[in-house]
């Protein structure tokens, strides 16, 4: 008998069920088994950290934003090198050329370097520089 195509998704459905059972089970179990002592300290925002001060919607200097954004950008750019490095030895076989894979990465790093140069020359990496114009 031909098995309907949709049954191919059975492992996926089982996985979702297992995930739901695990997550739901852990929360429920700790709710049932754990003791509940609702003191003032227990219910504060950060039980063992600093007391929250002020509103989260205050104004921050744009410098934090620039640093965070650049971190994400260069982080993601670095991540792209990993899959390349993993299959580097097979690349000559795939591309039928000895240096094609190598040269492609050179082009890629070149673009990353251009980005770094632009950011540096514009004075973004200099924390003290005037950012009023951004």
């Amino acid at each position, binding site marked *: 008998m031909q098995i309907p*195509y949709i049954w191919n998704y059975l492992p996926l459905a089982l996985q979702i069920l297992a995930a739901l059972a695990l997550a739901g089970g852990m929360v429920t179990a700790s709710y049932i088994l754990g003791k509940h002592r609702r003191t003032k300290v227990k219910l504060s925002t950060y039980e063992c950290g600093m007391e929250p001060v002020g509103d989260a919607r205050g104004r921050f200097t744009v410098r934090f934003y620039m640093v965070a954004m650049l971190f994400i950008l260069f982080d993601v750019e670095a991540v792209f090198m990993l899959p390349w490095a993993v299959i580097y030895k097979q690349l000559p076989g795939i591309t039928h050329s000895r240096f094609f894979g190598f040269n492609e990465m050179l082009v890629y790093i070149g*673009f990353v370097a*251009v980005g770094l*140069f*632009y950011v540096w*020359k*514009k004075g973004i990496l200099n924390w003290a520089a005037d950012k009023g*114009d951004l």
Partner: protein
Amino acid sequence: MSSALLSILPEVVLTVTGVLIMLADPFFAPKASKKALGWLAVLGTLGAAGATLLQLRTHQILLTFSGSIQMDTFSVFFHLLIASIVLLTLLVSLDYFKPGATSHSGEYFALVLFGAVGMMLMTCSVELLMVFIGLEISSISTYILAGYRKGQATASESSLKYFLLGSFATAFFLYGIALAFGATGTTSLNGIASGLSVTAFPTMAFLALAMMLVGLGFKVSAAPFHVWTPDVYQGAPAPVVGLMSTAPKAAVFAVLLRITATTYSSELLHARWVWLIGIIAVLSMTIGNLGALLQKDAKRMLAYSSIAHAGYLMVAYTALPADSIAAAAFYTAGYAAMNVGAFAVISQLGGYDEPLRTIDDYRGLAQKHPVLAAALAFFLLSLIGIPFTGGFFGKFYVFNAAIGAGHVWLAVLGLLNSGVACFYYLRLLTALYSRKLGEEGGEFEGSSPAAAIAIAGAVLATLLLGVLPGKVLGLAQRGATVQVSRNR
């Protein structure tokens, strides 16, 4: 030269030029004039157009990068169109940013070029994931460009709205790709074309097509996915509006043509697809024209007019294969010439601060700048579709193709809509030629020499498409033949 390099040579030229601009920009003083960088961008665009002509001369179809890029007459047609639009936009923008207006006028030119890379990539991709990457490159550049007049509240609104709704639409397109992969087991358009006729999931395949239509329909501002258009066009700089109302739309229409071509293999799916497109076309035409009637702001009116034109263009997609592709490709060219031209004139009259908003602000233009007024009037006449303009032949071929496929009702609705459209275009036109009311409204600025060349070029292109459409139509038809023969 390797065939892989040849197939993406225009994109490579534009990318390298854009990178050079980004490298050179920090060496200028922040508030200095970056006009030299603008000229470098112009040079790069000319180089890209030259590279495209080189592609055209090879007379071959190249399938490169593991079957994700296809260089053919169809892609060459749209490459040339996008390069021309970008060239005109750059010329118009050269003096748009007065020194000191913004310290980011250098990056502006680079962003225009990077956007063009994405648009060109879309027109030569035959792999949906590659189309998606092209769409993102072009969209992200235009999101930034829309908010370039940073101090103005309308500009921020424009950029943010475009970004949020644009990302939302992109998600739809991506979901469509996923469903298409589910239904046919491939994301290559050629593979989907052969997979659609044998797929075990016709409903999933139809859903995939519909999802992609939502995503792409947003990008061409077709109703009911058009709500962002007036707000975004109102706040974005006028030269950018000229660019983003034509070039990315041309690219998306090219993608839509390639997707439409995949449905030819399955009669059932093609019939349903034509219905979807027909409904969207009628909605866009009607909502666009009725909306434009109510506008007081000139840029908003032209935004609604661009919605209506997207509707006319969609009519072409319901026609028989070869007719439909040639007619749609020709219409994008005609529409691009007149719309870029109209926004070029508007950008020169208002300048960076854009004090001219309402239609009444344009009163008395003919007395002060008779030539600019005549050019704007000519573009408006072409947008109406008067004979001897590109707009006329665009509409003629589109409605003719629809009638040829038996969709007479679409052609009739289109003609009725064109009649309604006369009214609001003529309202702006009569304002140009009537006396100024009092002193309110800003002064008109004149056109810079470079922009004058661009406006003259747009006039010439509109006129040429209206008098001698043969050459452009011939290229469009050759592109259409490639598509049809490939996907049958």
